[in-house]
């Protein structure tokens, strides 16, 4: 079983469009959405929830007004400016470190676990899907990502799946690191803009150099700037990254999305063909890559 994570560095380059298309192209797989704080894959896959659980993570301090003597010790030890002069904890600023709880001389601070989100196992027209929803203003998205991947893996083992296809998050920080550590391969979806190129270089050095994960790159809207597309191909070549394909600037992608379908279901045009080629290239390469 192989787990492939689709990431991008820069947001909005087409991660979810490609992931949703793979739902049609890859046989015998589990789909997972690890972009837990702005998840969109469900809009195309339309999951029917079969099982759901609460996700508890982290704690928040709460000062009981009646027991507080306003001595100021909590304000003094808090490193996050989370306690205001009226001795009320700002739950958004509270990092859940519990230092105020420890040092409060009259034990006036409660410290309870947060309900930070929910995770789901669902049925879709493409097979099973594991996904989650992080609560508004909640932290610990990395832990929820790890949980989603673990559940997807358990399900894939149970069902003898060949692949897990994971929609990742933008950026290079905590949620992305949690999405890719230990994965079999990463596909980076980029665009030929100076921003896309800058962010690609950072995310490739995270995935390929830092974590040594086999990394594939594809370019969306390649015809927007042919010169930068060429530079991206050159960058891949000189860094031994597998360039697996490119798709044009095509409004069929938006039309498919508006109709709640992936591009493979919606169209049999050139863009859909090019995405099929991208998956074919990845599947061919995986045969080689995984061996070393």
């Amino acid at each position, binding site marked *: 079983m192989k787990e492939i994570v689709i990431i991008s560095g820069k*947001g*909005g380059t087409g991660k979810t469009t490609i992931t949703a298309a793979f739902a049609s192209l890859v046989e015998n797989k589990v789909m997972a959405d690890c972009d837990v704080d702005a998840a969109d894959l469900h809009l195309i896959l339309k999951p029917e929830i079969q099982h759901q659980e609460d996700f508890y993570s982290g704690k928040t301090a709460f000062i009981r007004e009646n027991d507080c003597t306003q001595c100021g010790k909590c304000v003094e030890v808090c*490193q996050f400016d989370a306690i205001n002069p009226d001795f009320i904890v700002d739950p958004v600023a509270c*990092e859940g470190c*519990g*230092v105020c709880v420890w040092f409060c001389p009259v034990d006036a601070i409660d410290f309870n676990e947060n309900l930070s989100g929910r995770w789901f196992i669902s049925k879709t027209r493409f097979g099973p899907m594991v996904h989650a929803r992080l609560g508004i203003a909640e932290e610990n998205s990395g832990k929820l990502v790890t949980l989603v991947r673990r559940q997807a893996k358990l399900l894939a083992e149970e069902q003898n799946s060949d692949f897990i296809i994971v929609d990742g998050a933008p*950026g290079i920080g*905590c949620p992305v690191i949690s999405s890719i550590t230990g994965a079999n391969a990463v596909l980076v979806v980029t665009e030929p803009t*100076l921003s896309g190129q800058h962010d690609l270089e950072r995310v490739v050095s995270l995935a390929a150099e830092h974590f040594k994960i086999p990394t594939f790159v594809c370019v969306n809207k390649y015809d927007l700037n042919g010169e930068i597309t060429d530079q991206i191909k050159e960058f891949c070549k000189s860094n031994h990254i597998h360039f697996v394909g490119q798709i044009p600037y095509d409004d069929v992608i*938006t039309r498919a999305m508006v109709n709640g379908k992936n591009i493979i279901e919606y169209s049999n045009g050139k863009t859909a063909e090019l995405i099929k080629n991208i998956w074919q290239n990845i599947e061919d390469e995986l045969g080689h890559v995984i061996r070393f």
Partner: protein
Amino acid sequence: MIIGIASGKGGTGKTTVAVNLALSLENNVQYLDCDVEEPNGHIFIKPEFQKSITVGTPIPEVDKSKCTYCGKCGEICQYNAIIVVKNNVLVFPELCHSCAGCWLVCPEDAISPIDRELGILEQGNTGGIEFTHGMLRIGEAMSPPLIRKVKSEIDPAKTVIIDAPPGTSCLVIESVKKSDFVILVTEPTPFGLNDLKLAVEMVRSLKLKLGVVINRSDIGNDDVRIYCKEEKIDILLEIKNDRKIAEAYSRGTPLVELYPDYKAKFQALYHEIERRVGA
């Protein structure tokens, strides 16, 4: 005045709005790029950096000659970043949230804070814009302290424009909190709408004023407009879908340079926000 620019969905045009708003105001502007994982503002603003400093966060260093292995540090730590096993103390720097608990609690004074590198902060000027961004070190997961460092540069005497990371997580909240007004940039597609709703919830939970800018306004469908109307959220500006704009963006050319008449639109956007913040 502090204006935060966020989006929910990535790639909708946060940086486009932030950059062009800054360039349209010309004077007394501070641009803070808080998307420290993938900062892009500098590609368009093109500042000459005069200052580059390494940003760290304090983590514990244990003086083993003083340590009695009492285990209090491990007990207070909520993140398993410091643990005592038999006659040894182990520190896991990347798990540490810099809460200071371990060095405050240590009865032997055996723990002191040392700096762990998170990334760099760069600063430079161009025209009337003072530009600052943070650049997270590759492999680093802990972006909030770097975002806080970028925000510590806020000069209240200036018009402060904050370019936030995508999403609705703690990083976005760290970036936009204490703003006088938040602009949410979206596109009129199902993904844009879904993530706009999440972003609106986030901004409302912070009790901040907000307005929407629709980018690529003539693609997709009308659902974003219908949603905004139902929620009584005003659409402050629409930017048309135009291949020339996308091509200029790809080369790092700002919209107001390609179409100078957009300058007046961004100035009007600013005045409208100023009016709403004053109200």
